[in-house]
């Protein structure tokens, strides 16, 4: 994957064989700052600049948006939904489990 390239899970070869494992691996790479999350399901390898890592070029961003505009719209809606849910986490009965938002900070 070249620097500055915006990609989704579907571009990763192993994704069709082991989607869950690839998703987790990508999430870990984001945590380790090896790649950056652009939006839900879209990532990029930061370019190295003189003053630090750079975001993808405008051309690359436009390409990724034009390539899949529906994904971007869906991502924005998903982020709004999750943000609303995290603002007022549901009360989960103890026998059913835990609020994911709260459990993430255990």
């Amino acid at each position, binding site marked *: 994957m070249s620097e500055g390239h915006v990609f989704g899970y579907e571009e990763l070869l192993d*994704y069709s064989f082991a989607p*869950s494992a690839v998703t987790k691996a990508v999430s*870990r790479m984001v*945590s380790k700052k090896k790649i950056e999350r652009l939006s839900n399901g879209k990532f990029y390898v930061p370019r190295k600049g003189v003053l630090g890592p750079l975001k993808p070029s405008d051309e690359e961003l436009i390409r990724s948006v034009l390539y899949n505009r529906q994904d971007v719209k869906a991502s924005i809606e998903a982020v709004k939904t999750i943000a609303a849910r995290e603002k007022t986490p549901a009360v989960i009965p*103890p026998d059913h*489990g*835990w*609020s994911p938002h709260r*459990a993430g900070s*255990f």
Partner: protein
Amino acid sequence: MKTDDYQQALFDKEWFASSPCLEIGNDVLPDNIAYYIEGDEYIASRLKIVVNFNNKTTGEVTLNLFAEIAAELFSKALGKKISEELHTQIISEGPFNTTVDNKNVEMLKEVWPTGLGHTLEIIININTSAATS
């Protein structure tokens, strides 16, 4: 330990989040501990902490830290202090499977075929028969 965003695995109904790896020591391949939550969109039904032992020199420190994190998770997830018996079993790396307040608490040990290390997992999950009753 704090996880990243809770998100759905694509082409899978499962939702999950994982914490960044907490690394112990300065070796090339250090021991590490991570925390995972899994479930559906609205409810996390499985909490898991995993430790990978890669170095004998840091093993004792890593195990004590893992036991400390396990006790913290136990306290927050189950609302009570971990029992002395379970704590001892964690420290002795003994696999166990028990039930606490309708939740299964399990510890698994996997020794790697390479003989160069091993993994311990503590999993707290919902007793599904209790959840559906």
